[in-house]
């Protein structure tokens, strides 16, 4: 389970006042900005994206250009998206519980 209440990792320097785009992580409401990728939206409000599969380490992406594949996150509907190359859309609901685990 992600400690998504931990402090934001990324700092916004531009677009701070751009339109807010609402999304949720495990049901908690947050907002990103118009023009955010999923990774930036999440990392601007929390300290991690996911836990690694084999050692449960926190992970937060690494390359930001779609190469390292470290940033996959799961939507509540079960779809997995690569956070750094996926634009944020309003009302995306992310879950940090593995899909198919229940």
């Amino acid at each position, binding site marked *: 389970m992600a400690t998504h209440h931990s402090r934001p990792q*990324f700092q916004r320097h531009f677009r701070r006042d*751009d339109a807010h785009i609402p999304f949720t992580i495990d049901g908690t409401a947050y907002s990103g900005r118009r023009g955010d*990728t999923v990774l930036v939206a999440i990392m601007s409000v929390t300290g991690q994206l996911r836990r690694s599969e084999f050692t449960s380490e*926190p992970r937060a992406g690494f390359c*930001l250009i779609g190469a*390292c594949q470290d940033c996959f996150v799961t939507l509540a509907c079960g779809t997995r998206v690569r956070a750094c190359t996926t634009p944020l859309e309003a009302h995306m609901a992310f879950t940090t519980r593995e899909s198919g685990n229940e």
Partner: protein
Amino acid sequence: MNETASVVVVGAGPAGICAAKALVAAGLRPVVIDEGLRAGGQIYRRPLVDDGRSATDLYGSEAAKATRLHREFDALLPSIDYRPQTLVWNIADNQLHLTANGVHQRIGFQNLILTTGATDRVLPFPGWTLPGVYTLGAAQTALKAQGCTIGKRVVFLGSGPLLYLVAWQYVKAGGDVAAVLDTAPFAAKLNLLSAIRFDPRLVLTGMSYAARLVRRGVKLHYNVRPTGVDGSQHVEGLNFKSGAKTHSIACDAVAYGFALRAETQLADLAGCPFRFDDRDRTWLPATDDAGRTSCKGIYLAGDGSGIAGADAAEISGELAALAVIQDSGMAADPRRMSVLAGARRRKAKLRDILEKAFPFPQNWFDQIPGATTLCRCEEITVSSVIDTVHGNDLRELNRLKALSRAGMGRCQGRMCSAAMAEILASTQKLKLPEIGRLRAQAPIKPLPLSLHEAGS
């Protein structure tokens, strides 16, 4: 159902854009495919939405070039078949396999120009998988494309021209740069002096970043090796050695990298022969001066055929297009081709010098504890890889992958194969070219399982 194109360009960075432009000028209508949302490639990446920054804010000294390339690309749009957000994930039987939006498609081609660019070359160190540690390219992309810094207080670490540039960009954007840690000795920088005659502008702007950083009070250290990251959930500080001295710096983010590595998977799947490149310390697809491979109809340009930078990518992109034009029996200006080839050779010489000024940290693994993660996808440690090498007397990289699992994960070895190669070679006292190279496998990036054929 499958279409066949006379020319396909993969990649819409500087190389791809210049290739497309030359093809259009010759009356061809290339298909231009790029995985990104907007053309420009990595260096001239455009924000998803306008955020009020000018081209100079975004691209600094390269603003004029960026603006020109973007404008040229936009002007090409009516004359090309542009497919953004489309991943080429396999090449087989003269067909490209693509996905866009979860739909699978094939395109046949007569000619193919691969300009697939590069990604950061990274090496493991203790703590490099913690949230807050990013590649240099990531730090730059966060700022350029998203207007964010990767943390409040950032340490820049590594070797390569990007190190000082990105640190300076962070300072300029109002970020707090805790230090710049160069893994090379200061003396290496003196090599830059001999590069001045090849490209005075580039060298002088490059050197000015260090000076400007110092003026803003940023500490520079040379000859650095990181020894660990503080923090268990995210970065709280970085410990390092500079020569014999140990230091620690409080920070909440680290950006690091050692220049770039070419993205060569598609050339490999297309069957292009590779050669070992001493300077890039890796295998690269073999081409002639104009970018021709020995596979009929397949051409390479840009960093995907060897790291040479954005200006060289423009040159090699145009050259590859002219080669396509020439080989298709149309008129290509031979004088233009030889001018470009000459310019390309000069850029290569410049790269040789830059490599001396920003050298790869050859003895990196002398100081890396065995418990450090080597493969971030499969979470395989350095010591387990070394044990696998010893236990099986391994001498070949694919074999090491098979027996250790390093390189078998989602990234297909992009983030660990350079390190694996260095470790295998040094453990067995072999030279890098002797241990082979990881074979590319389709799909070159993860594909949705629910992918379906167009029309079905």
